């Protein structure tokens, strides 16, 4: 079985390739990047002329909500949304019900992924049992069961001794520890970024310094232990600067940023819009600019969505009571391409942030179209204009702050291991 993706502009940051190529795929692997027109024989051809062919996106920060909150998202619906967004690999966070802090839950997720998942699903195990921040989960067992990394995401590991031990212990299994940096004592009662707007709206503030002090701690722990550490969803200028300096001084730290943090500011809260409520909160303009600089200069390694589906009962209520989080899998690509159009990122850098960066941090062989790599790719129409409408979403939940936004750029076809998992031409035909 030979699949050829023909005539597209292949952008592969792993080889700095940015040229028209035919991508030849056999048995789910890339076997050649041929000069267009060279390949005569194929079982299936995908016409990518006038489009970009990217390594499939790797989103290292996704909440699939299964098991436990299947009314918000499932492995099936979440991976469907991923495929629609050009995302071919998702790493899913441990805060399911029950928590993914043991092999049984990891197995369950992987079985679901195998039977119902459209894209690669890599579970992330909990750092502490029940995400309680009190004792370490069985990290070895989790690694053996298939967890790709560890994180208590949603909850910081407030106890510094435990945070240190997690870093030290995880090294035996060569797994990354992902830290949600938030000093809970400083954010208690908070609902949005602390600043003029939170005071005006009378909402509890979550000060940027609550993130800064924990990023500082985690970098210090990383430097002290020599372990690798990954900072989830950077949102403050202070944190970006600390990561930048730490990298320069040789600390093994990596970091991610979300499209909502680099696209929006706290102003989006507007008249108490709960779709602008997430943790970390949308920050100031200055913070957003710092994120853009960090994305451009390599301080930030990956763009991750923190895709956090919530139903109306959690979101269509008073702001202070609403759940934190927004969905993001279906909008990450156009929002990132927006930075290319604005000259913040080069094309190759953008594609690197969407896949290779996360793959390197996680230590997986994704985010590349090099010969021999898994044939995960996205065919992207970079200029396609479309309006993001919640009723067309693949995710089960609709909590996006980008509803009604006019977006530019879209994955028209998504391929996982040589198999087409998403194709807009077909979808549109079906939708009439």
């Amino acid at each position, binding site marked *: 079985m030979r699949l050829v993706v023909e005539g597209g502009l292949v952008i592969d940051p792993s080889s700095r390739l940015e040229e028209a190529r035919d991508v030849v795929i056999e048995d789910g692997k890339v076997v050649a990047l041929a000069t267009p027109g060279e390949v005569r024989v194929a079982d299936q051809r995908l016409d990518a002329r006038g489009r970009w062919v990217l390594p499939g996106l790797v989103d290292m920060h996704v909440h699939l909500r299964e098991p436990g909150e299947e009314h918000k998202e499932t492995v099936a619906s979440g991976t469907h949304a991923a495929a629609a967004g050009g995302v071919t690999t998702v790493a899913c966070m441990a805060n399911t019900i029950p928590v993914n802090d043991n092999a049984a839950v990891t197995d369950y997720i992987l079985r679901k992924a195998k039977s119902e998942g459209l894209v690669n699903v890599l579970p992330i195990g909990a750092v502490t049992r029940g995400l309680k921040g009190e004792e370490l989960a069985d990290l070895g067992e989790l690694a053996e069961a298939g967890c790709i990394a560890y994180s208590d995401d949603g909850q910081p590991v407030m106890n510094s001794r435990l945070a240190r031990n997690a870093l030290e212990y995880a090294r035996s299994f060569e797994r990354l520890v992902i830290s949600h940096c938030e000093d809970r004592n400083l954010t208690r009662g908070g609902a949005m970024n602390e*600043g*003029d707007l939170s*005071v*005006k*709206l*009378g*909402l509890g503030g979550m000060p940027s310094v609550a993130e800064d002090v924990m990023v500082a701690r985690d970098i210090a722990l990383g430097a002290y232990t020599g372990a690798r550490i990954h900072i989830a969803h950077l949102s403050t200028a202070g944190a970006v600067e600390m990561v930048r300096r730490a990298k320069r001084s040789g600390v093994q730290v990596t970091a991610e940023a979300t499209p909502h943090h680099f696209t929006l500011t706290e102003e989006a809260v507007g*008249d*108490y819009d709960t779709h602008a409520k997430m943790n970390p909160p949308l920050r100031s303009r200055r913070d957003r600019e710092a994120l853009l600089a960090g994305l451009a200069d390599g301080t930030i390694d990956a763009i991750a969505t923190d895709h956090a589906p919530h139903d109306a*009962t959690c979101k*269509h*209520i*008073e*702001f*202070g*009571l609403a759940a934190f989080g927004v969905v993001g899998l279906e909008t990450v690509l156009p929002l990132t391409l927006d930075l290319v159009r604005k000259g913040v990122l080069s094309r190759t850098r953008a594609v690197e942030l969407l896949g290779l960066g996360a793959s390197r941090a996680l230590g997986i062989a994704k985010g590349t179209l090099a010969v021999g790599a898994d044939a995960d790719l996205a065919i992207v129409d970079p200029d396609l204009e479309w309006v993001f409408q919640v009723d067309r979403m693949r995710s089960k939940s609709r909590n996006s702050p980008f509803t009604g936004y006019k977006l530019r750029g879209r994955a028209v076809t998504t391929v996982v291991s040589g198999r087409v998992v998403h194709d807009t031409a077909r979808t549109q035909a079906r939708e009439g």
Partner: protein
Amino acid sequence: MPERATSPRPPTSQESLDFAIGEHHAPLLGKHLLGLEGLSREQIQGVLDVARRMKDVSERPVKKVPTLRGKTVVCLFHEASTRTRSSFEIAAKRLSADTINVGGSGSSTTKGETLLDTALNLEAMRPDAIVVRHSESGACNFLARQVECPVINAGDGAHEHPSQGLLDLFTMQERLGSLEGLKVAIVGDLLHSRVVRSNLYGLRALGAEVHLCGPGTLISPWFESYGARLHRRIEPAIEGADVIMMLRIQRERQGTSTIPSLREYERFFGLSPARVGLAKPDVIIMHPGPMNRGVEISPEVADGPYSVILDQVTNGVAVRMALLYLLVARGSDAPRG
């Protein structure tokens, strides 16, 4: 009522013509009253002028006018508040509206029903206004997007308390005349006070000089961006003041590291008779209530000659009558002619 939405019916009587032509003007307030933020001087003064007439009604032997006969006002209180609720209720009754109170123990609000469900259910009974008190900031903004009838904010979290702000302005004007250039000091937990926000907007709109004071843990530089002067000690804030407003300090703040103790608060931020001496000789002392006598305000000051605290309560009814009149007693806002 959908049939009214088509086109305004032509006036049939001399009266209607007279008013439509001679007194036509844009509605003073929008559909809802969610806060004083963004209201103009003219709008605020307009409400206060109507309140003046309403106070006349309250001072008559027959304290009732038929203005809102046949109208229903729902008071939806998700947070206990005897004072504000009864003030709105009396106001509605003096305008001959029917009132019902929802909230507190025994109502759906304690049975896990969401605010939205409660409001939609109440609205299905066709009230003419919903007066909402809620512990969450923005709850009224949220409801106003969901329901058809006017929503009047009776205090939402730490956001706004517009009727309180208006009654404070009314009381100040009644005692002092124009507020232009007057020094008004507000002291207390600014960060968590909806009263201070509404007062700040209103006082600035009417040209007063606003001085705010509280312990460092309960203030924010944001207030300065709205033209207030911020102080960390009470003395400079109240020095030479025409008005001193003391805010209630929540006992829960004690020990949560925002204030060390009520005793310490009283000592450094409480209004004692000696401190009153720093203000203008004819200063007026206000408090939105309920007071912690002996904490933010000493009993001698609260009950002393400068205190207008009970005037505030009286004026609250007049201001709320004005708001109900302005928001409920009107037809289609579509301009005529």
